[in-house]
């Protein structure tokens, strides 16, 4: 027993150090976000000092830097993520239930198409999806969730059907005998039982939509709407004015909400990811 705890002390120390190393990149952004533009490039690893420290200036500048208010990008990112994920959860869970319970030829075809869509890389459809989305006016943050539902349906339906298959029929039969219609059965009985899967799918889809760069970049009317990843890439690419300090502040601002959300529901997130990966 004695030996074991010595071993675990060493292990703990090693991992404590490793964890700190793991956090260096984030820390790096944090310190640079307080330095003035020139110093970010000159001494990227130095702590801010009297000469290079600019306080919150970079954060203030970052808000409007690049001719587009950062908060607007944040707003659109939030809007797109929330609506898309809600839409995906609602529609695909209903569809998964329908597919399993109706189990017709069409359902099977649809199911296999969903499986198929999971192995198709985005590059295969990105150009044509852009044209289609533009034609159908799906190029705004209010309508782009439809694109996300369409392209993200595969995995979600796959995960939901896996769960619905395991639900006992008896409850629904009893409900049907009591005169409970499908809509009430679904929302009153099925949906509450789907909760664990809803959480996993929700987390996976949130991570995807929130961080997605290429799809909104191609589909959205970029001239009016930006999301956070697009905004960051835009700052990097602009002619002449690359204010590294302000960019670091913007990056920090884009990471902070993720870290906060993660701190609050890391258990769910880790569980959801593990469940999703095992299924996928």
């Amino acid at each position: 027993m004695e030996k074991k705890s010595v071993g675990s002390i060493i292990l703990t120390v090693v991992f404590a150090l490793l964890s700190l190393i793991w956090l260096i990149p984030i820390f790096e952004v944090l310190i640079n976000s307080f330095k003035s533009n020139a110093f970010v490039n000159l001494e990227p690893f130095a702590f801010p000092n009297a000469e290079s420290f600019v306080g919150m200036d970079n954060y203030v500048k970052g808000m409007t830097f690049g001719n587009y208010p950062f908060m607007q990008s944040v707003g659109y990112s939030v809007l797109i993520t929330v609506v898309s994920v809600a839409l995906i959860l609602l529609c695909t869970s209903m569809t998964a239930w329908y597919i399993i319970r109706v189990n017709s030829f069409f359902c099977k075809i649809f199911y296999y198409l969903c499986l198929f869509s999971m192995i198709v890389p985005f590059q295969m459809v990105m150009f044509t999806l852009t044209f289609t989305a533009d034609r159908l006016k799906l190029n705004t943050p209010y309508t782009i969730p439809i694109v996300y539902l369409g392209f993200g349906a595969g995995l979600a339906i796959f995960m939901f059907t896996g769960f619905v298959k395991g639900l006992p029929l008896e409850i629904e039969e009893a409900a049907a005998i009591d005169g409970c219609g499908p809509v009430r059965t679904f929302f009153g009985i099925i949906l509450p039982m789907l909760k664990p899967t809803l959480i996993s799918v929700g987390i996976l889809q949130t991570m995807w939509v929130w961080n997605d760069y290429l799809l909104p970049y191609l589909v959205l009317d970029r001239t009016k709407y930006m999301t956070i990843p697009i905004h960051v890439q835009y700052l990097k690419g602009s002619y002449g004015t690359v204010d590294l300090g302000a960019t670091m502040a913007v990056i920090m601002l884009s990471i902070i909400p993720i870290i906060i959300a993660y701190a609050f529901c890391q258990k769910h997130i880790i569980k959801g990811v593990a469940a999703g990966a095992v299924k996928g």
Partner: protein
Amino acid sequence: MKKFTAMLLTGMIAISMLASCSSGGNTASSDSSSSKESKPASSESSKTSEAASDNGSTASGGSVYYLNFKPEADQAWQELAATYTEQTGVPVKVVTAAGGTYSDTLTAEMAKSEAPTLFQVGNKQGLADWNDYCLDLSGTDVYTQMTTDDFNLKDDDGAVKAIGYCYEAYGIITNKALLAEAGYTVEDITDFDSLKAVADDIHARSGELGFDAFTSAGLDGSSSWRYSGHLTSVALFYEFRDDNVTEQPATVTGKYLDNFRNIWDLYVNDSSADPATLSTSTGDMCEAEFGTGKAAFFQQGTWEYANLVDPEKYGMNPDDLVMLPIYCGVDGEENAALCCGTENCWAVNAKASEEDIQATLDFINWVVTSDEGTTMMADQFGPIPFKAAKEPENVFFADANRLLAEGKYTVGWAFTYTPNTDSWRAGIVTALAAYSADPSDANWENVKTAYVDGWAIEYAAQNG
């Protein structure tokens, strides 16, 4: 089952019909009642409104979407567009592509149903790419306002497809005050050798003077175009002049690359920057070195003037600023003037709706005739080749004009012939960065390859 399929098919058909409809109908704007010329241009108002009524169409229902090329002018365009909308009620949307992505953005935007009605064609190659989309502008109001045809792009039939709405010049911006501190005047610099002598001396004494000769030759994407685009252009210009090139050549020889190497070596050696880190130094940093008096020479263009004298930014004294030609050791270059030309040519989207085309033509005509428009153009773009142009306060244009008045030759913008511009330049930047970190002849060979072979490859890619 059959019922399903039928329903779904109906759905699909409905979607496709929706798709085909949406491409035709455009935004229903709320400005149908307002008259488009409610506040016409100040000086030639009668003429423009007459011309407009000749055309017999009013812009009601039309809107303008301008895909702007210059990020630094974005603010000014937005404000001008707002003013125009306020005065006429015609919606004007101005969008600016991020640096280095104009052609990507244009390609993407043009494929959309709400495509730009006004866009920019930089050169002959751009015209070749977009010819189908360029409206013939001959005889339009805005065209009749022009004072010269020099900057316009014409297709093979001589139709004016894009009009050069401004011209610019670049060279070596010099801080006269610093030069004086080092014991020189601009008159001391007349060719490459004298430039090198002055720069070498300043660099040698930089510790004591507190400033260096050149700013960092930054090769970050925000700065590299000054060299891969503008500096290579000087070499291309002399080569094309020798060979009487008048249209995009399939190959280049790199005859003047040694001269290019001369000036590049000077930029790199006579500056305080570590040559190995040029690939990460940004345009802002280079500008700051000059703006804060840490360097005496800065290769940039007329568009830089506003930034340098802006009291909010660097607040330099206009009297201290002068722009010198880029000397690189070519015979007879003491007679060279600045590098003048334009990449700024307006083209109107011929595939836009009738109303939008009219609205766009009215808008650009207003820009070059109205008080607000010409003021903004003078501030942002300097002298513009239109009758109602305002005199710009930019001293660099005075330099350009003075040199021309002395009978010197303009170093034309040969880079407008570059095939597949962004990609060709990317190759040059890669090679230049490697060469700067390790200035060996072998690495210079790679610059040559990127320049000569790269040209042929891009020409083939462009036209294949």
